[in-house]
């Protein structure tokens, strides 16, 4: 588990992480499923220790069957832990007072399909005990927020596309303006524009001081929007930290240069740089920060100009694949 190197994080990120108190915490959380009338067991989750702080976007990633959804269901009180502790706002997850403060968008949500979007939200609003006046104000706002047109709002849910159902799902999750939003694969079924809007919505929740716990397979999305990430494999926590901590600093660099003669390129090759020659520029590949300095010096000494420098680091996907493979899968 990597929980160090906070000093490398940007100031804003550090401030946010130090200000937000822990609102969700699991201690040695385990879940064992037992088949009925059988001694066969499946350890879905083993000794999970994570914490989620107020105001952050927390990503929960892992391969299929790794225990992500089990974790989410435990946090929502839909299943009971076999052992360990779990608190949300210092209370148990099945406490109705906790439910008042959270929102949940399940993976592939399904609603009463004989109702239209407004009726579905009205139903959920009533479950929160909102008055008719509050519901009449809140529901159109939410449907605007998820970009559901006036015409679509009047159609029954069974005529909706998967993406539209997902939008209604987000709207119902936000109906109580929750302090913590649980999202399970929120971009499933959305087109690229819808997925982008969903990500913007998630970020806007964080900007408003809300906390988001996100389960997703789309690691590029997780890397782009999450503050901290937990990688789960075979029910165990294998990596946990900020995205920067997990991905690390840039490891390779490309120096784009022009005005270098053949002799200088030969020197570069002999010095161990990878050299790519294009029509009007060359690219020197440096495998470390030290080599980057040497490459820049070499270009300047040869009388050339540096056009651009690009750094490359591992993606979360690289880290994920490497971690899961080293954990015995894939």
């Amino acid at each position, binding site marked *: 588990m990597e929980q160090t190197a906070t000093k490398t994080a940007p100031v804003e990120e550090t401030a946010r992480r130090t200000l937000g108190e822990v609102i969700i915490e699991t201690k040695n959380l385990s879940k064992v499923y037992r088949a009925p009338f059988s001694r066969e067991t499946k350890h879905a989750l083993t000794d999970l220790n994570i914490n989620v702080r107020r105001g952050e976007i927390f990503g929960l990633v892992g391969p299929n069957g790794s225990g992500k959804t089990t974790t989410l269901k435990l946090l*929502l009180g*839909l299943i009971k832990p076999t052992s360990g502790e779990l608190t949300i706002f210092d209370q148990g997850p099945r406490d109705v007072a906790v439910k008042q403060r959270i929102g949940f968008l399940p993976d592939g949500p399904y609603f009463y399909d004989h109702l239209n979007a407004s009726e579905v939200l009205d139903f959920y609003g009533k479950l929160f*005990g909102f008055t008719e006046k509050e519901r009449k104000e809140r529901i159109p706002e939410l449907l605007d927020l998820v970009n559901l047109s006036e015409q679509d709002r009047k159609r029954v849910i069974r005529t909706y596309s998967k993406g539209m159902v997902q*939008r209604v799902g987000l709207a119902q999750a936000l109906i*109580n*303006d929750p302090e913590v939003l649980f999202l399970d694969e929120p971009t499933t079924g959305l087109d690229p524009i819808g997925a982008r*809007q969903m990500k913007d919505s998630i970020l806007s929740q964080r900007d408003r001081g809300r906390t988001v716990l996100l389960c997703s397979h789309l690691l590029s999305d997780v890397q782009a929007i999450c503050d901290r990430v937990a990688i789960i494999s075979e029910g165990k926590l294998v990596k946990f930290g900020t995205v920067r901590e997990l991905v690390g600093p840039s490891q390779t660099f490309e120096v784009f240069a022009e005005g270098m003669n053949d002799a200088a390129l030969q020197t570069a090759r002999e010095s161990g740089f990878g050299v790519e020659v294009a029509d009007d520029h060359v690219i020197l590949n440096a495998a470390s920060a030290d080599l980057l300095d040497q490459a820049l010096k070499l270009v300047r000494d040869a009388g050339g100009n540096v056009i651009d420098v690009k750094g490359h680091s591992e993606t979360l996907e690289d880290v994920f694949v490497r971690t899961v493979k080293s954990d015995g899968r894939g």
Partner: protein
Amino acid sequence: MNSTSETAALGGSGHIEIPARWRVGQGILCLIVALLGVYFFAAGWHSGVGETRLADNVSLFDAVGVLVLMGFIWLTTPAAATLAWATFQESVRRKWMFALLIFAVVMLVNSTFFTWMQPGSQEKFIQDFGLGFIVIITMLMAIFLGVALVPPEIERRTILTILSKPVDRAQFLIGKFLGLCLTLLVNLAILSVMFLLTYAIFRFRLDHGIKEALMVYPGHPGLKFELGNLTTALSLQYGFLIIMAALALMLSLLLSNIAAIVVAFLIYFGGQTSGYWEYLSQGRSGGALDKGLSPAIRDTIHAIYFVLPRFDRFDVRERLVSHMPIGFNYMFKSFSSGLVYAAVLLIISYLLFSDREF
């Protein structure tokens, strides 16, 4: 999704509080039930109508049903009422339900057509046919809707979003159950009105006029008395339906869909013949089995009789055709025992459901 749109905060922290207006309404309803209970208790105790066996008087235990009803009212929060209304809306939109209702209405309205099957006792036939048909149709509704109250919510995963809202599992079950009770009440009311109208028209035609149909003389208790008695019988049918609904709900949490339906039917037939089980356990059934049963088997039969719902209490067709009135004490006792039985089934349902994992 407009990320810049700001919305008003509605969700506060802390426990959910039931609005004061709701509690006042619940209090008034409970008071009405309590007063009716006291009235029926007193009236039933002093009823001049001679009843058969158990209903000759009303014991203090029968008042438990009144307390159960008050408990139901008090436990029905706004969230449970919301779920009940949603369940009702969903039920009445089922196509098979609508088809069944239309079929039943058509059959009831045309029940006079079938009287040729029993010439000479057409009146008895219509009463038997009408009430029997309503019993079967509404029982089918109770069983098929009852077993489909909770499992489809789990299969379709609508339960995930509902239980992640401030609704505890007891409220969820009560809401679903009350929604079914409302559905059954509406369907029973529609069928009852159609049946009573059909019967009234039949009597007008049989007696050659409205005035003649209303007349009271020996052997002709008058249409008013008969319609009152039929209404009482149909009200009792609702008590039976409440038990069947709770039974189907409980079985659906315990068994697969098909198994729940089969067992519900078995219990229905067992409950309809509960009097026979009682007599059999006492060796008084009048059949060949009376002498051949060992005490252990008799005890087992008695245990089955004890556990089975007393559905025969809700079937008063025999009394109707002999123009015998149905007294308060009988109604009170039957409804009360029905409510207690339904409450026990719902408590078992909650125990099965409270730790269910989704």
